[in-house]
């Protein structure tokens, strides 16, 4: 397919990897923020193409993985009400809450439906005036404009039976929190190309300046990622810290203004809890007061839910790039995509699931060794 296959050319990938190797003289730790990029890296074995000096660690950019347990529990509680239709992106159904997941709630009779496009949830509300339709609106900046459009359409049409359970996260505050952490090892970032397609690049200039860390906006194909890595390595080796855009075919400096406009109309920035990581100030979105009539958190009282993560899941360290999924003692043993203990094992963009799908065999020696533990 045009603009996909070209960027999967193995010959170019090898040439880029050779170029990276020719430039590297010392170890560097780089982080790709987005789970979609993690998936490409694992699927195409990009980390294996790289010289030993370049270590890739995987960031928190999987919205399914960082949606708080409390939100999942709330969605399950709401879905279980007879008058409710809960609509969600498909990835969310198997994410474990503290006791169950939406998939099990559905199996037990809850009306849980999957939407590909958030405005499908608005259509469901129009077609079911006697039911309350709740859309589980999760995502990063990439998804926020589409989710905002669903709220905007519902308000325009005066729908009284539609609301959103919002759990939105923003990338730049997460990078800021990672860089400010005393455990941080990351020396350069690949910024998420589709988030920047919407938001543009300006927010990342401030991070480059404040932390003197190079950031390259990168795409999602193997060649994109290798080119972004090459750009980071060249900057690091030259002692530079600049913002560069590798993904020019989709990302402009100002981003998508109509999309930013609808986001700002519907949402405002708020403190947000990230699953596994904890609260990060001003790192999420909530509905504005003018959309209070569409805010499931205000309409439905499900009480305060406070729950703890399963103790053995080290997803907090995985999502911050401090540990690899294979460092988790239950990885591929008690935690598998069929039976995930933590969210990063659910979504194909979660680091644990990406390692499970593409790297399980590489660690089978470890599994064998563990049998004798």
């Amino acid at each position, binding site marked *: 397919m045009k603009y996909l296959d070209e960027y999967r050319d193995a010959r170019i990938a090898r040439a880029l990897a050779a170029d990276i190797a020719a430039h590297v003289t010392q170890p560097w730790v780089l982080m790709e923020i987005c789970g979609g990029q993690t998936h490409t890296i694992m699927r195409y074995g990009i980390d294996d193409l790289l010289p030993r000096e370049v270590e890739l660690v995987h960031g928190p950019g999987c919205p399914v993985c960082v949606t708080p347990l409390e939100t999942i529990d709330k969605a399950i509680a709401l879905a279980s009400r007879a008058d409710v239709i809960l609509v969600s992106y498909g*990835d969310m159904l198997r994410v474990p809450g503290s006791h169950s997941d939406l998939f099990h709630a559905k199996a037990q009779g809850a009306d849980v439906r999957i939407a590909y496009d958030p405005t499908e949830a608005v259509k469901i509300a129009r077609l079911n005036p006697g039911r309350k339709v709740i859309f589980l609106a999760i995502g990063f900046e990439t998804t926020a404009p589409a989710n905002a459009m669903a709220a905007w359409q519902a308000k325009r049409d005066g729908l009284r039976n539609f609301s959103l359970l919002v759990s939105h996260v923003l990338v730049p505050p997460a990078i800021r929190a990672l860089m400010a952490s005393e455990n941080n090892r990351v020396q350069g970032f690949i910024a998420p190309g589709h988030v920047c397609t919407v938001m543009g690049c300006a927010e990342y200039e401030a991070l480059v300046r404040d932390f003197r860390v190079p950031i390259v906006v990168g795409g999602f194909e193997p060649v994109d990622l290798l080119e972004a890595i090459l750009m980071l390595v060249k900057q690091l080796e030259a002692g530079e810290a600049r913002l560069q855009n590798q993904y020019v*075919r989709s990302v402009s400096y100002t981003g*998508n203004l109509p999309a930013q406009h609808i986001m700002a109309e519907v949402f405002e920035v708020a403190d947000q809890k990230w699953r596994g990581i904890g609260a990060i100030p001003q790192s999420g979105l909530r509905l504005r007061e003018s959309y209070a009539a569409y805010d499931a958190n205000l309409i439905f009282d499900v009480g305060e839910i406070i729950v703890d993560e399963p103790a053995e899941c080290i997803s907090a360290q995985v999502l911050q790039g401090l540990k690899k999924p294979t460092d988790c003692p239950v990885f591929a043993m008690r935690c598998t995509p069929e039976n995930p203990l933590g969210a990063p094992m659910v979504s194909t963009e979660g680091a644990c699931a990406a390692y499970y799908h593409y790297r399980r065999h590489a660690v089978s020696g470890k599994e064998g060794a563990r049998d004798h533990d």
Partner: protein
Amino acid sequence: MCLAIPGKVLEIQAVEPMRAARVQFGGIIRQVSLDFVPEAKVGDYVMVHVGFAISLVDAAEADRTYKVLSELGMLEAELPPADSE
């Protein structure tokens, strides 16, 4: 979740008060909202995420990047094979 894929605009449609398009992704054709990329024309490539076009693929830039990169690949192909350690 943040994946967006490039597709080719086959036809522009007016749906409700909005603009939408029939967009082709490989063998699949879907309806896509053009609310955020109103300038898209038939024949353009758009990046699509959860049913919404979020950018017009800059064709000149995409072709230029690819050309630069494939020359790099060509160059590599003309060199003797790398030592297999």
